[in-house]
């Protein structure tokens, strides 16, 4: 039964590990957070909707399902391809962004790659602001989190299947918190440079391409048009003309900010951030800005990484 279920996962997550030389265990390896990691158990729990609704941390229900995906069907030497690390959380449970959170632990991701193969930094979608009953602010993900990374393959790869592995550690919380981890790997055949017919970076047949497209569309973009930033001794005022609301999600390595529960969101085109001078932090304002506009249901998200003005820049 378990073997059949594993095969079903492998088939449903098509577009990887399809090489005739590989066996059924090649491709995506997924793991859950409670008890020993067994892909079969994860699917059995999903088949039973009652199991997910009544979350009892003591039961063998996956609170987080982790997968490593790509849309490509092979690794082409001398090119880049996009990898997605997808976490699916049980309803009501969340994992943490590497933000200026009052609590929690950010996700920890470490790659294990063959020699000559490199991976770029992870790209994160915008988190949600989550204020607890106790007034603590965290920047978290509910439901689904897809992280993207660009894998670059050297031109001189040997023509044999290549395995990319990743170790993910997380803290997943609802009213309680549980640690979890997954060891994932992805094995694909290697195509030599110049071989015809390889689909581009993130297109390909099957569901995985959709996952990657969705993740790419969700990535924060560049600074919003018209953004003005006014730095004073203690305040940083962000203005986006035409916005009907703003929210700022500060990253943990940027400038420390105070009173973010109240100051992190505004129903106008202006956000007044306050420096927290007593708290250790970086020099730059780093994070993601959400911009709401009348007429659009979802805000747009923008990466900010702003240096404070030098003394010469300051007017006062």
């Amino acid at each position, binding site marked *: 039964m378990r073997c059949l279920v594993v095969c079903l996962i492998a088939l449903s997550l098509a577009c990887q590990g399809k090489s005739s030389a590989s066996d059924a265990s090649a491709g995506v390896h997924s793991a859950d957070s409670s008890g020993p990691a067994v892909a079969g158990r994860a699917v059995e729990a999903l088949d039973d909707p009652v199991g997910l609704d009544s979350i009892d941390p003591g039961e063998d229900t996956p609170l987080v399902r982790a997968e490593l995906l790509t849309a490509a069907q092979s690794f082409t030497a001398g090119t880049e391809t996009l990898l997605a690390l997808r976490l699916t959380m049980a309803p009501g449970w969340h994992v943490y962004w590497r933000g200026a959170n*009052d609590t*929690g*632990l950010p996700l920890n991701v470490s790659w294990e790659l063959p020699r000559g193969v490199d991976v770029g930094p992870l790209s994160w979608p915008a988190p949600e602001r989550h204020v607890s009953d106790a007034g603590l602010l965290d920047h978290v993900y509910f439901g689904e989190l897809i992280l993207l990374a660009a894998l670059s393959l050297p031109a001189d790869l040997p023509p044999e299947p290549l395995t990319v592995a990743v170790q993910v550690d997380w*803290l997943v919380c609802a*009213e309680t918190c549980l*640690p979890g981890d997954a060891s994932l790997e992805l094995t694909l055949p290697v195509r030599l440079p110049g071989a015809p017919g390889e689909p581009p970076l993130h297109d390909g047949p099957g569901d995985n391409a959709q996952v990657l497209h969705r993740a790419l569309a969700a990535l924060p973009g560049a600074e919003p048009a018209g953004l003005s930033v006014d730095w004073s001794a203690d305040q940083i005022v962000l203005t986006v003309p035409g916005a009907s609301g703003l929210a700022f999600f500060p990253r943990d390595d940027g400038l420390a900010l105070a009173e973010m529960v109240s100051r992190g969101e505004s129903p106008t085109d202006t956000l007044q951030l306050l420096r927290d001078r007593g708290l*250790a932090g970086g020099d730059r304002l780093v994070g993601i800005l959400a911009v709401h506009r009348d007429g659009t249901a979802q805000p747009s998200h923008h990466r900010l990484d702003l240096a404070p003005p030098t003394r010469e820049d300051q007017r006062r």
Partner: protein
Amino acid sequence: MRQTLTAVLGITALLLATGCQGAPQPSDGAADEIVEVVALPMPEGATLAADFTLTDTTGEEHQLFDYLDANKTVVLEWFNPECPVSRRYHSPERVMAAAYSEVLDDDLVWLAINSGAPGNQGHGLELNRQAINDWEIAYPVLIDESGDVGRAFGAKTTPHMFVIRPDRVIAYDGAIDDSGGRGEASENLVVSAVAACRRGELPENGRTRAFGCSVKY
């Protein structure tokens, strides 16, 4: 909030005026002895610890000001035996125990506090006693069910560490180390803070962002 701030500033001013080296020693009749009173440096925006009395898992009471007035530095560790982060610092690697033995001396007291409310993760005498036993915790674990003490200090996570000087100034408030909760730590921030206080200096980082599970108020 404003009133509290005014009260804190008032007390701070008073302490500065009188010298904040902890409880003055009673005179033994040597009236001509001149005692040099050295004021400890004040951190910017100094906050003073509020007094509390809590009972530990053995039924013994502990009052903060008793320790401070006896010229002791007090380390507070917010603790939850069921929080995986709090647990990780006790077992299997005994990071907390190692920090404790590094700073332990006659002038220091280390207290763990559990501010979990009844029904929440990590609450319960038996549970906490078991943890003390299993993880060989050498210091008291105080039970703060109402969460009043946790809220008074602004304890957000488990672990969340505070280092309080004998003059009641909170010299350090934040994470146990500089790992950010992921990866290796290069510095135990409590050990550094205690060392700085003992040198009569302010810790280099007076406040850092703590990590861990939220305190289960």
